[in-house]
């Protein structure tokens, strides 16, 4: 007995010593870490940098987490982090960079438009910056640890941004409704098959119709579909990035070799398949809530978070909020995600031949933090970017936003726990990232997206037929590409 006690005492002592050692080692490491930041930032102490952020859950988290203040305290570099909506951000940046007013040193910029900025020579080459200033490379920057998001910040083999957001737009559904015995029974009685997440558009449409009818039958505010169908740029992005690809219309229907959209010039934009996809999109709006034609991405998210929609294709940058935050959602814990439904032949094709050139089914949102070439504060700006994406901050970041930037963070117990709460969304994001890609590299992206928008919104409103819309659109895209020298 005495021996046993002695053994237990020794074991406890050993464990405690180990813990003390670990804590001390951590403190020493943390202190060394702080020393590095202080030393690297010393030449820039007292400088002010201005980074323009977009109104996204990630930007909001960065502001609320206190990490900016911490950075300021350690480095003595002052950080302004104003925020703007997607359209405002774009307008502010092109004004600033076009006029050379140097208001902004960097920005959290949408992947969609980054190539336009790169094409104008506005982005600072971070590889070059690191080569010139090796003293500001954080020892644990570990670039290969970044996931697929890093690819979208790299052009011509050079790094132009540090990823700060990474999520996908995919199929989101009400898991609780799909598992409800009464609903399952009613669905089977009507369609002769089990209610399950749809794999193709036909199944999706059946489910949409079923839930909209179910809502009417039960006298509840429930619909089988949601969309971003307002006369707004969200409509164009939704169609091009989310609905056309699963129908096999990739890269906005533009042939990346000829840079033309019409079928006769190598594109697919006015093809029968594209017309079928657009017609289907418009027809499906009848299964959405009554206000679906006034929805942009915000309202589409709200329609799911308010519990009135059973399924839809949504930007998952908000998924963690919807699934875990009772202040923003009435469907906490009730949601699931899955791959976007496709035409069966499209998915078969993609699963056989993995790769960007072979097509994709949806959109991955991978905003990078970019420093601007005209800025005189590129070095402190780069330091700040590394601060925001350091490994020791990533767990807090992933848990708060549901975005994943670094592969290493996936093995963290807190992230594993979050993945369970999100019903496997993080697995989906990492396992199938090859099926979701960003916008194509169009230097005139900003011009193109508005042209697409102006045609799509008229077709959705019924002003013109789907066929006239895509024929006219393809013609105008060809013309503008030619005029702009692409």
């Amino acid at each position: 007995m005495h021996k046993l006690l002695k053994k237990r005492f020794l074991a406890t002592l050993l464990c405690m010593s180990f813990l003390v050692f670990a804590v001390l080692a951590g403190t020493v490491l943390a202190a060394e870490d702080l020393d590095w930041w202080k030393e690297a930032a010393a030449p820039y102490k007292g400088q002010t940098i201005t980074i323009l952020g977009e109104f996204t859950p990630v930007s909001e988290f960065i502001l609320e987490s206190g990490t900016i203040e911490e950075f300021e305290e350690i480095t003595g570099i002052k950080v302004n982090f104003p925020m703007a909506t997607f359209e405002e951000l774009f307008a502010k940046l092109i004004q600033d960079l076009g006029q050379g007013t140097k208001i902004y040193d960097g920005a959290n910029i949408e992947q969609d438009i980054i190539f336009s900025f790169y094409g104008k020579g506005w982005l600072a080459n971070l590889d070059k910056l690191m080569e010139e200033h090796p003293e500001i490379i954080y020892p644990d920057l570990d670039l290969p640890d970044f996931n697929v998001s890093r690819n979208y910040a790299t052009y011509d083999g050079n790094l132009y941004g540090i990823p700060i957001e990474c999520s996908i737009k995919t199929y989101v559904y009400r898991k609780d409704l799909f598992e409800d015995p009464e609903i399952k029974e009613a669905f089977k009685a009507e369609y002769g098959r089990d209610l399950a997440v749809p794999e193709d558009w036909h199944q999706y449409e059946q489910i949409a119709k079923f839930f909209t009818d179910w809502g009417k039958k039960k006298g509840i505010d429930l619909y089988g579909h949601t969309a971003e169908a307002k006369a707004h740029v969200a409509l164009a992005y939704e169609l091009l990035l989310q609905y056309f690809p699963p129908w096999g219309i990739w890269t906005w229907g533009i042939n990346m070799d000829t840079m033309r959209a019409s079928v006769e010039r190598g594109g697919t934009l006015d093809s029968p398949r594209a017309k079928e996809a657009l017609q289907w999109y418009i027809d499906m709006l009848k299964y959405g809530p009554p206000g679906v034609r006034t929805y942009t991405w915000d309202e589409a998210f709200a329609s799911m978070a308010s519990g009135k929609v059973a399924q839809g294709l949504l930007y998952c940058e908000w998924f963690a909020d919807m699934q875990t935050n009772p202040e923003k959602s009435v469907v906490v814990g009730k949601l699931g995600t899955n791959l976007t439904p496709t035409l069966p032949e499209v998915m078969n094709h993609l699963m056989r031949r993995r790769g960007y050139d072979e097509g994709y089914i949806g959109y991955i949102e991978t905003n990078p933090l970019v420093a601007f070439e005209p800025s005189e504060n590129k070095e402190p700006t780069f330091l700040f970017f590394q601060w925001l994406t350091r490994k020791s901050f990533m767990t807090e970041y992933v848990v708060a936003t549901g975005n994943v930037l670094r592969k290493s963070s996936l093995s963290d117990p807190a992230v594993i726990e979050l993945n369970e709460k999100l019903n496997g969304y993080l697995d989906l994001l990492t396992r199938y990232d090859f099926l979701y890609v960003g916008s194509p590299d169009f230097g005139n992206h900003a011009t193109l997206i508005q042209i697409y928008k102006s045609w799509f919104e008229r077709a959705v409103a019924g002003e013109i037929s789907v066929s006239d819309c895509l024929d006219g659109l393809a013609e105008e895209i060809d013309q503008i590409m030619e005029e702009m020298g692409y």
Partner: protein
Amino acid sequence: MRKVRHSELKGWEFLSPTLVLLLFLGVVPILYVIYLSLFRYDLFSVVGMRYIGLDNYRKLFSDPVFLYSLALGLRFAATTCVIQIFLGLILALFLARNFTGKGLVRGVISLPIAVAPVAIGSVWILLTNVEVGPLPYLAEKIFGIQYNIGLSAGQAFLTVVIMDVWHWTPFVTLAFLAALTMRPQEPLEAAKIDGASSWQSFRYVTLPFLEPVLITVVLIRVMDALRIYDEVRILTDGGPGSATRFVSIHIAKMVVSQARYGYSATMSVFVLYLTIVICWLLYILISRRGGAGATKAA
């Protein structure tokens, strides 16, 4: 050669700072826009800025989207101005009378002018929201009408018209009210003694007196209506489809979102020219008619 007097020179001296300011803030930007309109200048083009002479102007007249938004803008301006002037005049005549609570009514009626256009747009988004707004609910409950500005082009246009009328009629009312308050009573009394009816007094005495205000109000409102942007941008963003894509919205989208500076400059120059022509024509029309009325009254 006329000799310039010392006092005249002194006057120009005093005016010069303002004139220089006006030149830089008013004339130079317009000249710059005219200059840009002669170029193909798309920010994200790989061919850069190219001089193309009047090509942009030629393109303008065969651009169906621009012509459509221009026609829509004119239709909007005509509709709103007629309604605002009619309602504003009636309200002004009503408020010119003496009644209890007149001050309060005047204050309440003037409120919309004080609200920022962006706030007006936001308020109307809430009012017309299909899922939570009171207007769609009341339209269905009372009239059995499905009111959905995201779906119906006609309803969207009508809503924007009503929103603008609600916002700017008080301005018209106040302008007419100011003139009515200044109106001398003698001609009215003389007309009454001569046996003129109320309508005749209004038509031949009051209305000619309001003519200068009418011209000013019409010109301001036409110019304002042609350049309406904020409220519509917030409420419908030009939709559904292109139902409310007025010319100002169209130009803003071309210049801000598409960064097509050359072609947008051409549109802006043309719309400015058209606005000036329309205002000049209206001025001639109203002043001639008003003059005839005034002569008749005399």
